[in-house]
């Protein structure tokens, strides 16, 4: 009964989520910056990526501050965000949590209304991708260390 089952379970869930958030962010950013690859993005792909990130951010707000009910009607099925990801987000924004939540609400609304993202929105999007990536890499390193390979 080693911990490999727990570590690999954790890694498996995190890597999928990390990949999905990152892929959605790539689509949104290609469209926003009008990069060459924008022409290959279908309207459905763009809409799906937007919808996916809205769900992630809404769930994040709910996880950080459960007392916020702004989006309750929109949470059909909660997305299980890893606790280490939520803790990392909380710790990174500890001193300015109120502003951070406001920023999250703004990006949710901009994505919902298909509006141009602001610089702050893009900063948050990149930050979330980085935190998710850091946590996934950390969880990967952890289970390799466990196997001493």
């Amino acid at each position, binding site marked *: *009964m*080693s*911990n*490999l*089952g*727990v*570590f*690999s*379970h*954790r*890694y*498996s*869930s995190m*890597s*999928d989520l*990390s*990949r999905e958030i*990152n*892929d959605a*962010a*790539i689509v949104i*950013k*290609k469209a926003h*910056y009008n*990069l*060459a*690859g924008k022409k*290959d993005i279908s309207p459905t792909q763009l809409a799906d990526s937007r919808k996916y990130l809205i769900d992630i951010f809404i769930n994040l707000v709910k996880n950080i501050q*459960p007392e916020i009910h702004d989006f309750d009607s929109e949470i059909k099925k909660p997305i*299980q965000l890893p*606790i*280490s990801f939520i*803790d990392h987000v909380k710790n990174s924004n500890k001193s300015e949590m109120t502003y951070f939540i406001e920023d999250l609400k703004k990006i949710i609304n901009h994505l919902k209304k298909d509006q141009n993202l602001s610089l702050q929105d893009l900063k948050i999007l*990149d930050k979330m*991708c*980085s935190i998710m*990536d850091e946590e*996934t*890499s950390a969880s*990967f390193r*952890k289970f*390799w260390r466990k*196997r001493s*390979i």
Partner: protein
Amino acid sequence: MNSFFPSLVLELHNRCEKIITLLEQHELPVEIEPNLKNTIKKTISIKSNLESILADPDFGAPELLINQINRYKRCYESYSVIEKIQLPILLRYSEKDHFFHSFLKQSLAQINYKIETPLISAASTNYYEVFADKNPVFSSFFVPVVDDIFLLNLPDLFHEIGHLIFLHKENEMSYEFAIKFNDYLSSEKNRLKIQTRPFEPKFYDNLEELWKDSWVKEHTANMIATYCLGPSFGWQCLRICVNTGEDVYFPSKIITQPDDHPSFESQIQGILEILRIMGMKSEFSTLNEKWNQYKMFCHFDKPTEHDHCYPEYLMKSLAENVFQGCTKIGLKPFVSQNHIKGLINIPLTLDHSWNLFHIDPKKFLIWEESEVKNLKATLSKIP
């Protein structure tokens, strides 16, 4: 990074190509061919992902570089799993692996968990373990090198199967429990605000992390194993507890490593609860009695924190949730197992092993030797 990054992608792409060739040229027994084919398929998919990074018209664009590096890292991780987990099993596939492959296949069939048999290696240096992947065919089990000639440890393979089932069926197994657990934490944290309690808020933060990160997985894996095997899993758990000499109430003071297993006391209570739900009254009483005797002989002191870490009603709620989950996904409970002539029923054989061991350990040792031969002969006939 602008020139180093493309080089990294290229090098990993080359590795994938080489591995694909190596695997395509490798000959393996027919039963392992689906695993081989799927490993090749997965490596091809990593290679395609790397190709799509390289072919992206925005490859290297400063606005996207961080996301592209993240994509590459996930590819590298997937590749590493193949190189370090699947490849060694496939390239060094042995007679013992072959036995355990048949054993695992038969076990999965008899508990009615319908998945393609994952890889299994009889070369573990770390007791029983599983690399659990969302895709069962990429999951890999590891078992101790001598466990093809002994029977009493084998229930632990079902704990690892339990980890895999939990990864695939998390909602079915723990959704209702998760709601109750969150309510418990909120109410405890609220109580901290209005009345004096012996614990700091940090205690509950750590508790939340431990439960959500690992304890729920370990308890669920135990409960699934008990659902499938009945009391033999409980006896094996008691045996491990005695062998390791761990304080049965550890951990409960919480300031500990975040990846600890839950306390043996809570593990046994979880196992007992499943036996109770399955209506196995006499097995429940015997295991409970032996467990209480062990605790009494060893003079373990129960810390105050223990009941706050593993509240009885939450353990019962998880057991109820797991039992319902197992039933819902169609797993065959131990109580419904029956012998079929000419076949070895693994859950019943393991139960019988433990029963004989209790009645007459010396006789058991002689019986075990012949039963292992019988098991190997029977499994070798199964395609």
